């Protein structure tokens, strides 16, 4: 089933330059670098939810940022439908934003505080469908908001008068407005309360089933990954240390880090 593979990451390495200390400058030490992602291979098939776990600093968010072209690639390549994405091409940005959309962790800082819900969504819809008139844009917006379960009476509000759950729904609606092929979810429920978290997780699962939407789901909580995903990749210090079906990984973890991770999940007593 090779044709099903949407996104393929091959031997990807990303480096960040570290701050040089005064000592380094005097000694003439060359650039210090930190390997955020070190030789990662990953592939994403149409319609699947791939879970990516790891602790903070393991390179999960860096990977997402690299896919959408924010981080520079040091080595390796990313292929979309078998074709390598040329991140150096200036025109690639529109293509990237059309195919991939990101939902960020913190719904409080990922929305523009001075724009209403209406303005936020209109901007995205207009950018990708400039031929649409006002009415069509409005209709598209309403259908999006219905899809994510957002009350359409609130569209002239600004983020400050919305709750965290409502903001995250707008974040998801904004990403879906483009009709992307892949939704990259960077810890979408970490900043939310438990009861709201369940609502958003259900919503994402519904979207995956209804639209056959492909998702890369980053989280650091294993129980959420277990609920959402079929396949799981465990990241540790920039490398993928274990990859497989969730049942295999949860029942029979092979890598010591995965074992430790599973042992340390607090469990409910029943």
């Amino acid at each position: 089933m090779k044709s099903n593979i949407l996104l393929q990451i091959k031997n990807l390495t990303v480096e960040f330059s570290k701050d040089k200390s005064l000592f380094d400058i005097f000694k003439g030490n060359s650039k210090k670098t930190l390997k955020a992602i070190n030789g990662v291979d990953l592939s994403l098939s149409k319609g699947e939810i791939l879970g990516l776990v790891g602790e903070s600093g393991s390179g999960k968010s860096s990977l997402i940022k690299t896919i959408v072209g924010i981080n520079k690639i040091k080595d390796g390549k990313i292929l979309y439908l078998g074709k390598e994405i040329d991140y150096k091409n200036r025109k690639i940005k529109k293509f990237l934003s059309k195919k991939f959309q990101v939902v960020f962790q913190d719904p409080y800082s990922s929305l523009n505080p001075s724009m209403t819900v209406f303005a936020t969504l209109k901007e995205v819809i207009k950018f990708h469908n400039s031929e649409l008139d006002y009415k069509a844009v409005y209709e598209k917006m309403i259908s999006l908001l219905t899809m994510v379960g957002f009350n359409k009476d609130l569209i002239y509000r600004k983020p400050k008068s919305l709750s965290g759950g409502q903001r995250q729904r707008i974040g998801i609606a904004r990403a879906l407005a483009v009709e992307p092929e892949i939704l990259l979810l960077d810890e979408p429920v970490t900043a939310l309360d438990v009861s709201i978290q369940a609502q958003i997780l259900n919503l994402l699962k519904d979207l995956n089933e209804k639209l056959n939407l492909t998702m890369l789901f980053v989280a650091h909580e294993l129980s959420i990954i277990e609920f959402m995903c079929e396949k799981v990749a465990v990241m540790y210090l920039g490398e993928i240390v274990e990859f497989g079906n969730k049942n295999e990984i949860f029942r029979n973890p092979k890598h010591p880090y995965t074992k430790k991770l599973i042992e340390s999940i607090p469990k409910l007593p029943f």
Partner: protein
Amino acid sequence: MNMSANSKILSINNLSVSFDVDKNKIIANQNISLNLNEGEVLGIVGESGSGKTVLCKSIIKLLPTPPAKYLSGEIMYNDKNILTLSDEALREIRKKEIAMIFQNPMSSFNPVRTVGSQVVENLDLKKKFSKKEAKFFGIDLLNKVGIHSPETRYDEYPHQWSGGMLQRAAIAMAIRNNPKILLADEPTTALDVTIQAQILSLLLGIQKKNNMSMILVSHDLAVVAETCDRIGVMYAGKLVEIANTQDLFKRPQHPYTVGLINSIPRINSNQKRLKSIAGTLKSVSSHTNFCPFVERCEYSNQDCYNKNVLFKEVQKNHFTLCPYPERIIFNN
């Protein structure tokens, strides 16, 4: 667990706290009554904005007044009401009797002073330590909380330490004068899962060894389930249920607790969907007599609004605010 009345170390009676924000009044704690027994670990769970931290900070009167305002109630410790104590007496209590650990270890240290000097800063001054002795004591403390090679680490600055290590140092700071009560306000929320497990076991180890009482505040039901003897559930400023851990999970007697338990994904359960609670938490601006959860509750009807709810004991040591706990369907 000893539940007799004379083992009570702290008792909160009918506490109400409000805040004045932009001319609006928000009631953060409403008629809260609870007891803490000696050597007990009490968990407090609830969503953000439910008043957990306010309750914790009220216990050592740490809230700035204004904007905070203690409307009613008392907090009795050693036959003294903490809310009416003088600043001098309060300082003594905060130093020796009741200590607190905060959520974010990065922001609970002064970045321009060494970690070691902050850990020993408030050592009981009457003992009059010399600088050398204080350092010796500080290194011993850091050793106790599991910091490797504390001799060299002692003179480092907070930015050189990781979050988990700083939280360990914060624990060292809290236990330096052997307090009777430790208030831990989301001590592991800012940390990774593997570090969280380490910190929790460290806290519990110290608690057992010193026979301390501890209040552990968390929004994670699983964390409190693993660590606490008794759990209190808060919603919109009210304590809605309190019970022994076992009872709370086997027979929850308040719909909000049921909702919380159901909305957590569980490992190896093959759930298709999570049962979420509809609606969102709203802040409370006036005293209400009915249950705060009534708008989101699936079992509620008109009666719930008319009922003047009281915190009642449905089983031994199991209290709930729900007037109709018999309606709840909970299967496990």
